[in-house]
């Protein structure tokens, strides 16, 4: 080791950080652990919310589809009833005309 390298070694001696360094690191580590816990749970929470929304959407769609089908069936029944009534009225009209 030369004198010059000794000078370098002295210039690059280890230095201590400020007195509260350890405390600050530990405080940040504690905060980061709490956040890790929260973010660790967050995907599960998000997945549960997303699943609930999907289920709600599916149920709502199914409910509307049923209502629509029932409406169409009622309309068809009404049309059929009107056709029958119309036919009956035509028959009555013919009979009334024939008797006159």
């Amino acid at each position, binding site marked *: 080791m030369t*004198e*010059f*390298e000794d*000078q*370098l*070694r*002295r*210039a*690059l*001696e*280890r*230095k*201590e*950080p*400020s007195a509260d*360094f*350890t405390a*600050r*690191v*530990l405080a*940040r*580590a504690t905060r*980061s*652990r709490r956040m*890790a816990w929260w973010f660790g749970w967050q995907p599960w929470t998000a997945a549960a919310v997303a699943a609930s929304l999907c289920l709600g959407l599916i149920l709502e769609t199914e409910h509307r589809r049923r209502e629509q089908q029932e409406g169409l069936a009622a309309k068809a029944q009404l049309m059929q009833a009107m056709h029958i009534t119309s036919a009956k009225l035509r028959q009555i009209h013919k009979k009334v005309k024939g008797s006159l």
Partner: protein
Amino acid sequence: MIGSLAQEVGIPRAVDEADRSRAFEAAVREHQAMVFSVAYHFLQDRAVAEEVAQEVFLELFRHWNEIESREHRIHWLRKVASRRCIDQSRRRKFRNHLSLEEAPEPVTFMPATDPMMKRYIEQLLAKLAETPRLVMILRYQEGLEPSEISDVLDMPVATVKSHLQRSLALLRRKLSFATREGES
């Protein structure tokens, strides 16, 4: 590891966490001077060096279960500290763009024993490019051999030796000028 051992023998999680916290605190106390000094000598700014050192220890905390031994931890800390220093330097454009070759000679000349010399050497080191600066810090602060430095910085041993030789020659030239003039 404390954490995995505790799990194997069925120690409750709270005790496991407390052990881990105590072990981590001890590790911070043991290695803080090393990590802080690497950052300080590299960045030449106490506040920024403390911030970088804190980030390094937080990363250690996150990877605590992957560390196998004290030696592994020291190696890991040196490696992560080196990486963080380079990242920080690039992010903040911390380094003065003046190269060591362009650095001015000291305005007042000083004998080798002058405490100002120590500061002058620090300033000259700060003018080195990122990689050679880290190589010099790991060699003369940490006392690592070129093969160990190549491990920490993931570079060939020949490159480490080349950086050392070139940096030493440059620094020697600058310093010999300063001390020669101081003596005369």
